[in-house]
């Protein structure tokens, strides 16, 4: 999370809302450990990463939907091994569980 604080502060001081996605759990091979974080500003700017680049695009869409109030803060799962998983997969074949929420705490 440390590496994204400067961007978050910059967006906050410009009056922008921010959502944060954090890896909370992984199954099988996962490129990033729990705690890896990515921030998305309300106009779609991105800081940090939560995988090797496999799922970041989908995370931005989810984060923006949550910021617009179209979806609740929640755990989103990416990976092929889960029936309910999103269509976006990880090249390593693992599964990553992300918690995405507006940074309003």
């Amino acid at each position, binding site marked *: 999370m440390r590496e994204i604080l400067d961007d*978050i502060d910059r967006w906050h001081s410009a009056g922008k809302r921010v959502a944060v996605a*954090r890896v909370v759990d992984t199954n*099988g091979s996962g490129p990033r450990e*729990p*705690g890896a974080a990515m921030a998305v500003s309300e106009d779609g700017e991105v800081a940090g990463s939560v995988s090797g680049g496999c799922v970041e695009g989908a995370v931005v869409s989810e984060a923006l939907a949550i910021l617009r109030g179209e979806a609740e*803060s*929640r755990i989103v799962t990416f990976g092929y091994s889960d029936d309910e998983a999103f269509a976006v997969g990880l090249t390593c074949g693992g599964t990553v569980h992300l918690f995405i929420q507006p940074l309003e*705490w």
Partner: protein
Amino acid sequence: MSVYEKFSALVRDDQPMSLLTVVRGPGTGRVMLVDPSGTLDGSLGDPDLDRVASRDAIGELEAGRTGVRHYGPNGQTTPEDLADAETVEVFVESFAPPPQMWIFGAVDFTAALARVAKVLGYKVTVCDAREVFATKRRFPMADEVKVTWPGPQFTDHGGRLGARDAVCILTHDPKFDVPAIEGALATRVGYIGVMGSRKTHTKRLERLAEVGISSAADLARLHSPIGLDLGGRTPEETAISIVAEIIAVRTRRNAAPLAASDGPIH
């Protein structure tokens, strides 16, 4: 000050703390910050849950672990209590300061080991009693270079060493390595490695016995000769074999090739 403002200030200052977030169940999205003294900012939505989860978080922080824990809405943890209750999933994120590596002996191997340790994120301290060798100019990659005997270094700072930290003794010199081993064994450090040939190792065991270090528990903590058997020779190759051993000790793996084993990789 918001929880986030306090959180970002602590992270930037490398202060240890845990950030707890309800990621599923009642109160999803709530956060609480816990510092090692148990001071809480924010709340997960129930005072008993806050108390139980913060106690767990301090333990996780000590171990440097991050992950999801399950509770009942009032902090229940036993399977019987959880059976009829809604589950609150709490993501416990440990922000621990970087692990430390203390290297004793300002020798050629030291520079290579310090470089490799930096790649892995260690805060590296190089110690040697000889002023001409223990210089920042010879070890620019180290965070600290100290002219000191092992005794005072452990007496003054040994309490700071924990399970994630490492002590590597590369001195090859009995008047230096015996007190360094004594000092390291008196701490809670997770890895103690001592360099030397098998002959040196055998002689060192005799000298350790003379100062009263002979228990199986103590000797089991010493990785001597230091490093995995990679067959390397150069200081850089030796450094890789040392840090590889440190990783294997932490993960309790036997460091065989993945191709020669089956089962999960992580």
